[in-house]
């Protein structure tokens, strides 16, 4: 059985049994089944506990044997000392996969032996399991929210494996605000059986997954990990956030090489080699996930910048140069065309400065010209994709404005917002070039419509440029690998 078949009962279970279910709100045995039910799990959930007869109106079975159905996935929340026995029961019940939430295993020396025994028992029956010491999993297609946090993540096409449960689940909920949706998530725990490279390989072959994320602290088999990653990055973007102290190479190194070989430098080099996009913060990982899952890759590094205000243009151009992107010189023909649209004191170059014009049609025309220009591979649109909701608030407060006039004005604003957003999406579709926006005001998304959420926008030019640079870097890696494969 390949990894896709092996993990099918984990991420696409029809039936789940929670072993160690509880009616006590403070216990995982209660929190997890409640979250599964609240999350709208499509399959059947069975509660198992020797000591309970009923929990919140649902029947509780004394053991797995007595559950009147086949069980695809077992969620184990019993104390560590009995997990091995539970795993045996799983084997006898022909359970296919398990998630061992319970902690207290190889985090301690005594626990390590226990963990090996659990793994051996699972191995005997061919059960693949997550953990132990995991915070659970999420699977969008089954609406399966088998995790600690009470709020299900947004659904989408990003799959994420985290070696830290709390960092992982926190990013899932941060993703809610950022418009980053997840297909699958797993907190890999102690990795006594399934390791991060197994999940990564699985995500690579999962049709629901378009972008892969990982939070990694340590790798047992770095070479295998790189092998799996290399295969993955040929087809899907892979973003990693590496945590863990920078181990100094010092020791008693006799060579310069030994002294300089810090863990961080080696991981950085290895990731670059495998085409992995490296983020240095959780936030950044989400920014990148949003961009990589929504935008086409640029065919080169030539950036066209369209800005409502001059200062942002300057800052963006600086950031682009520092990031190794080219703020390309505009062809004369394009300059002439824009001369017809903007006041004569526009910047007449790249960045295209809209010089604060409020003529939304001019914005749209310039945007279209820039995105469709052959010398431009990617575009930054600063300050014109989101409507100025602040102006609207000011107007509402102004004396002498009739409600009708105000409403009609507000409608106009919403209308032109929609138009420009439609245009961006249409241009991206037509040209296959990425367009990244920067909002005028950080929370300025007065419309908050579905279209706005499809756009990739950031509150600052620096963040937008950083993300664009990573898109370019990955695109270049793909081109380089294709060339050298020949």
């Amino acid at each position: 059985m390949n990894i896709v078949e092996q993990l099918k009962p984990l991420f696409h279970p029809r039936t789940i049994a929670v072993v160690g279910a509880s009616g006590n709100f403070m216990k995982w045995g209660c929190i997890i089944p409640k979250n599964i039910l609240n999350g709208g799990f499509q399959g059947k959930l069975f509660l198992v506990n020797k000591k309970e007869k009923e929990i919140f109106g649902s029947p509780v079975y004394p053991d797995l044997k007595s559950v009147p159905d086949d069980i695809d996935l077992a969620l184990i929340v019993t104390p560590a000392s009995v997990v091995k026995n539970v795993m045996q029961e799983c084997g006898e019940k022909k359970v296919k996969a398990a998630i061992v939430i319970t902690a207290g295993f190889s985090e301690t020396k005594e626990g390590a032996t226990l963990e090996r025994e659990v793994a051996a028992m699972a191995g005997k029956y061919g059960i693949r399991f997550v953990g132990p010491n995991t915070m659970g999993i999420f699977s969008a297609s089954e609406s399966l929210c088998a995790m600690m946090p009470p709020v299900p993540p947004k659904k989408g096409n990003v799959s994420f494996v985290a070696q830290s449960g709390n960092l992982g689940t926190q990013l899932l909920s941060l993703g809610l605000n950022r418009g980053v949706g997840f297909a699958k998530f797993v907190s890999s725990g102690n990795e006594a059986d399934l390791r991060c490279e197994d999940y990564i390989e699985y995500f690579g072959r999962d049709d629901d997954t378009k972008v892969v994320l990982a939070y990694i602290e340590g790798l047992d088999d770095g070479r295998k990990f790189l092998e799996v990653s290399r295969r993955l990055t040929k087809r899907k973007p892979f973003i990693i956030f590496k945590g863990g102290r920078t181990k100094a190479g010092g020791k008693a190194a006799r060579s310069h090489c030994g002294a300089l070989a810090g863990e961080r430098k080696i991981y950085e080099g290895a990731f670059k080699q495998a085409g992995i996009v490296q983020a240095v913060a959780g936030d950044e990982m989400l920014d990148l996930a949003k961009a990589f899952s929504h935008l086409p890759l640029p065919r080169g590094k030539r950036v066209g910048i369209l800005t409502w205000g001059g200062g942002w243009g300057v800052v963006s151009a600086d950031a682009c140069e520092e990031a190794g992107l080219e703020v390309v010189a505009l062809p004369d023909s394009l300059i002439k065309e824009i001369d017809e649209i903007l006041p004569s004191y526009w910047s007449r170059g790249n960045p295209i400065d809209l010089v604060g014009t409020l003529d939304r049609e001019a914005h749209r025309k310039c945007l279209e010209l820039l995105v469709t220009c052959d010398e431009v591979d990617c575009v930054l649109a600063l300050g014109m994709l989101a409507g100025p909701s602040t102006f609207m608030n000011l107007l509402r407060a102004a004396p002498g404005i009739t409600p009708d006039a105000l409403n009609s004005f507000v409608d106009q604003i919403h209308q032109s917002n929609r138009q420009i957003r439609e245009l961006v999406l249409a241009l991206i579709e037509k040209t296959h070039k990425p367009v990244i926006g920067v909002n005028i005001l950080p929370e300025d998304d007065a419309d908050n419509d579905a279209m706005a959420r499809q756009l990739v926008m950031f509150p600052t030019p620096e963040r937008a440029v950083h993300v664009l640079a990573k898109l370019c870097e990955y695109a270049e890696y793909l081109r380089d690998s294709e060339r050298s494969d020949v």
Partner: protein
Amino acid sequence: MMQTKTLSEFEAKKLLSTHGIPVVQEILAKNLNEAKTAVTVLGFPVVLKACSPEILHKTEKKLVEVNLYTLDSVCMAFENIQKRVDGGLEGVLIQRQIADDMRECIAGLVRDEAFGPCVMFGSGGIYTEAVRDVTFRVAPLTKLDAFNLIHDTQIVNLLKGVRGQNPVNIPSLADILIKLGNLGMEDTNIFEIDTNPIMFLDGEPVCVDALVVLGR
């Protein structure tokens, strides 16, 4: 605790040379006569270095004499080095001196716990650890990996040729890095390798000094 053994500079360079890595032309002289003969083979100028697996950081200990253009200066240098070493001297290395064009690189190999043999490249010379302009890639290296490794440093800007200097042969340099990686993959007895500095003779890279640590 791992048992390690460090090869002498001479043995280290021989090892690299047998694997196709270009090293500086040199002869190990055990006495003054051998030193004189060596000079007739190598020509001037030469560098003299104390050679022994026990000696690291020779510069600080004044066990390197450079800019030797005459037989007399070679003889004096030879005797000085012998005097300054307390014993355990394998011999004195007589090396063809390569003109210093201010571009010194370092290349090496380490065994990482997670990734196994990894190749390092960057800015070399005595300030290597102070400047820290080095990058790593996991062996075995493809040509593209080696190219990227070189270009992932600051020193590559000097190698491309600035301020009137000629560019160096970067593919030759890449080849050294690939070979170091292969050496690490093939010979599991090798624990660490340093080649520092790598200098350039008519644009071609040459390993002027090398350190090899054996151990498992």
